[in-house]
Structures are given as structure tokens and as C-alpha cells.
């Protein structure tokens, strides 16, 4: 089997397993997995920046939170908003925010970029935390889930846990395929070129700034998609969803899974949430479950030191071994 065949097969098997899961998993696990897939979209959007454009953003939670607030604030208070306009509105506001802040933050590099993206996310955090605009530190409830209607026919009922699960699964697969397509295009190659050697790209005639801005805006909009879905799932928004801890967590997911691959961040989101569940499971580790962050913290430190390529790196290593083995068998 060639590498591309193998990855296609893995993709289909994974999609199928996820599609079958609600049939066997309990409500709690279906909801947990929905959350994981939302975070997977979030992590993929950040990977576009970190893994493919070489932009280490430490403020990606801004888009996650902003989209949630757009849904909460623009939607009518006592009725359901339609997904048809509220989702594009949320993603559009995120894209606009990315465009405006991008014009500024993309002028900086390295450590500066990391800190300036962080600072802009913090600015947004305080906008919602300190003013009455978004209910202050208490946040806002979203009493009604958005509707998904064609005429009078409901395509899906988002109050239904399984329906919402399938919507999220569908969107996650769409985002994956969309990003794959984009990254394989001339535009995508140029982004990777910028990551590897920005100076040379500029000297070759690429308007590097515009490419980075386009990537930044796209990542912001997709981060907004994840944030919108999360707000729908939990039914409320508060400033915590745009805190810097959230930005830190999504970086952990990207690296844990393996940056610069698209399935890596998806794996990372799964591993991150499942580990968090494991470390805080009282039945398993008793008293220490209270201190679950200790386990998480030590784990993150170990990943930073010993697993720079993430889980995807491990998989690729196994993949190469398998290929080498096949080749040996073919040549007696």
C-alpha cells in the first residue's frame, strides 16, 4: 500500500468509526466527543498558522470567544437564531477582527508576535470582562439553540445531542478537507515556503505580508467556527472562553498531536481532552483527581522536551517502518 492510499484508508476508517459512535456511546460520551471534535476544528485552524505559516499565535482563543459572543449578542434573546445567518456572521466578525489586528501583529516577528497576539486576545477578554456589553464576568446565556431550516423543514434539531454530534462531525470533516485542499494549492505551498524561509520568499517576489494576512484571516474565521459551535453546545458564553489559558491549551493540542500535519491537531484534541478526563477521574486516581493539573502540567513538559513532532511524528515513524518492511518483503 502506498502512503497516500494508507492515509486515505485511515481517514475513511476514522470517519466511519466516528459516524457509528453515537449508536454505541452513552449520552455523556457523545457530548464529550462532540466537544473534542469542536476543539479539533479549533486546533486545525491554529495549525494553519503555527504548522504551515510559521506564525506562533498565542491569542487564538480570541476568535473562539468572539464567535460565541457574536451568537449570544446578535441572536434574539427569547427565540432561536437561524444558523444560516448567525454562523456566517460569527465567522465574518472573526475574519474582520483577524484582518484588523493582523495588519498590526503581522508587522512583528518571533517573540514579539507571540506576545502581541496574546495581548490582543487579552484586550478582547477585558472588553467582555469589564464592560456590560457581554454581561461582564458572568457572561450571557443562549437560551435557544440555532435553527437549521430549509423553508419549514428542519434539517437538524440542534437540541438533539445526536443531531448536533453529526453536524459537528460533518463540519470537522469539511474543515479537514478544505484545509487539505488549500494547503496543496499554490497558495498553500507559498505559506509553507514562508514558514521555512520567509526572507527568501520575499526575495523571490512573493508579497509575503499579504500571504500571511490571508492565512491569519482564514485561521481566525475557522477558529470562529469552532467557537460558534462550542457556544451552541454549552448554551452560554463568558470571558473565560477567550482567556489566555484557552490559547495555551490549543497550542498544547496542536503540538501534542503534531504541528504541520492536519490530522495531528485532531489527534491532539482527542488526546488532550481524554487525558484531562483521566487525570480528573476520581474513580481512577482518588484524592489526587483534585490536582489533575499537576498530571497535565508534567505531561505537557514531557511533550515539550521529548515529543517535538507530536503523536503524528510517532505514527509517521511507525508508517515508515511498515513501508520499509513491505519493501524488504517485495525484494526477496
Amino acid at each position, binding site marked *: 500500500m502506498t502512503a497516500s492510499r494508507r492515509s486515505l484508508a485511515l481517514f475513511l476508517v476514522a470517519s466511519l468509526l466516528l459516524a457509528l459512535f453515537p449508536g454505541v456511546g452513552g449520552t455523556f460520551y457523545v457530548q464529550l466527543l462532540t466537544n473534542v471534535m469542536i476543539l479539533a476544528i479549533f486546533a486545525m485552524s491554529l495549525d494553519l498558522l503555527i504548522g504551515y505559516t510559521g506564525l506562533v499565535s498565542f491569542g487564538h482563543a480570541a476568535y473562539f470567544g468572539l464567535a460565541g459572543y457574536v451568537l449570544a449578542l446578535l441572536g434574539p434573546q427569547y427565540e432561536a437564531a437561524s444558523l444560516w445567518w448567525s454562523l456566517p456572521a460569527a465567522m465574518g466578525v472573526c475574519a474582520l477582527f483577524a484582518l484588523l489586528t493582523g495588519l498590526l501583529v503581522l508587522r512583528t516577528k518571533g517573540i514579539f508576535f507571540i506576545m502581541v497576539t496574546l495581548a490582543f486576545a487579552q484586550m478582547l477578554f477585558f472588553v467582555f470582562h469589564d464592560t456590560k456589553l457581554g454581561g461582564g464576568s458572568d457572561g450571557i446565556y443562549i437560551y435557544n439553540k440555532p435553527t437549521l431550516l430549509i423553508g419549514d423543514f428542519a434539517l437538524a434539531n440542534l437540541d438533539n445531542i445526536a443531531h448536533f454530534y453529526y453536524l459537528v462531525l460533518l463540519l470537522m470533516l469539511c474543515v479537514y478537507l478544505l484545509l487539505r*485542499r*488549500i494547503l*496543496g*494549492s*499554490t*497558495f*498553500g*505551498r*507559498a505559506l509553507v*515556503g514562508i514558514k*521555512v*524561509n520567509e*526572507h*527568501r*520568499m*520575499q*526575495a*523571490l*517576489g*512573493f*508579497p*509575503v505580508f499579504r500571504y500571511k494576512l490571508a492565512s491569519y484571516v482564514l485561521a481566525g474565521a475557522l477558529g470562529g467556527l469552532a467557537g460558534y459551535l462550542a457556544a451552541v453546545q454549552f448554551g452560554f458564553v463568558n470571558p473565560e472562553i477567550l482567556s489566555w489559558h484557552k490559547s495555551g491549551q490549543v497550542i498544547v493540542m496542536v503540538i501534542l498531536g503534531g504541528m504541520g500535519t492536519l490530522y495531528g491537531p485532531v489527534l491532539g484534541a482527542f488526546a488532550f481532552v481524554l487525558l484531562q478526563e483521566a487525570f480528573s477521574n476520581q474513580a481512577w486516581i482518588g484524592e489526587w483527581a483534585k490536582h489533575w493539573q499537576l498530571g497535565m502540567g508534567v505531561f505537557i513538559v514531557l511533550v515539550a522536551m521529548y515529543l517535538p513532532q507530536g503523536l503524528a511524528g510517532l505514527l509517521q515513524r511507525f508508517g515508515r517502518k511498515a513501508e520499509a518492511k513491505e519493501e524488504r518483503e517485495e525484494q526477496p
Partner: protein
Amino acid sequence: MSAPILRTQELTKRFSGLVAVSKVSLELHVGEVHAIIGPNGAGKSTLTNLLSGDLPPTSGVVQFEGRDIAGFKSDRISRLGVGRSYQKTNIFLPFTVFENCRLAAQSRTPHAWRVWSGAGRFGDINRLAEEAMEAAGLAHRRDRVAATLSHGEQRQLEIAMCLATQPRLLLLDEPLAGMGPHESLRMVELIKTLSAQHAIMLIEHDMDAVFAVAHRLTVMVNGEVIESGTPEAVRGSPVVQLAYLGGGDNLHV
């Protein structure tokens, strides 16, 4: 003689007090290799950076094909038709030779912003990349990862990437640096071939190579041009003799 493709007038670059390039005026023509020589620190690389847009000049004029380009960013100057190679090899190490050239060629085409169609699908880009590899003598290394090439081959790739952008003017910053004698010979032949259809500004310390290819020489010392002319004229110039003998430099003119 035809109009120069590039012309500078009183081009100057100051770094907080230090004058790196001082009032340099020169002309580059298609079909001509114009070599800039001089001791280390004479301002040759800075001059290249001013012409390619890697650095903005402090004052002076740079005209490319009659158009003022002083202060333009490097990507814009590159798109106008100026290609440059770097003294320190500056390539995409994790990519294959072909992908390096393909990326360079891609910068020239209107497809560059397509987000939907696969990058390998554009025949014109691929052809440009193949031609550039061929011209630079790297076709046999097409699928090798750049990081695994020998030093000389990386220098060739540097040139190939330049060529893939279809420049009319080439700024070559020490293309022979660190090359063995055999590789050097090949590079000299390549520069000769290219000079027929390009204007070339060559910065080089290897004097044998310079005198083998250059149609015109400009000598810089301390940021200033002290002599300019045909190789024969420069060789016999008393100013140059004095500057080098007086400076005790290792340049053997």
C-alpha cells in the same frame, strides 16, 4: 550601445554614521557581465542589497528599465525582473530541488493565489522550474532534498531558483564562494552562457573567474568606486595599484 537596464546615481547607504556605500554610480547592460571587486568590507554586498531591495538606500537614484525603484521592497523589485543569489546559501532546505525551483517559478504567475487547484497542476510553472534546473545543471538532482545536496550543488540551486523567476537582471553575490575547482569551472561556464541574454552584476573574490567572464569591472574600496572600466584598463590602473598596494590587501590584480 543600448540603454542600460539598470542605472544608479550617487547611490548611498549609511548605517548610523558609517557610510557603507558612498555615491556609487554605475550602469548594467544586457549581454554584459559587470563584476564588482574590492576587499572585504568595501560595500559590495551592501550595494547588492540596495539594488535588490533587501535594504533601502539612504539617498541616490536606482533606475530599472527607466523606472525609479529606490526604496521598493524586495518582492516588488523581484517581480519587475531582478533576480539575486545570496552569498550565504539561502534556499528551502527541507524541500526537494524541484520544489525549490517550482516555488520560485510560482511567484511569476497569476496562479499564485489559487487556493483550490493542486500546486503541481500548472504546466507552465512546472516547465519553468524544469528549465531552470536544466540550465543550472541540476536536472539529475531533481528529487533530492536540498539539505542533502553538496555545497556546490546548493550554490547551483541558488542560481536555478533565480533563473526560475525569469529575471532580466541577475545580481550574483559570490556565486563561487566555497566551491571546488571543478564546480567553479562549471559555474563560470554557466555565467558565460547566461550573460548572452541577461544583464549580470557579479560580485566575486576569485580573480581568475572574474577576468574570465567580466566585460566590465568596477573596483570599490571603503564604499566608494575608485575605478571602473574594461578589465584591461582596470588591470593597468595606477589608482587601483596604489589602493591595493597601499592597503596591503590580498587582491592580486
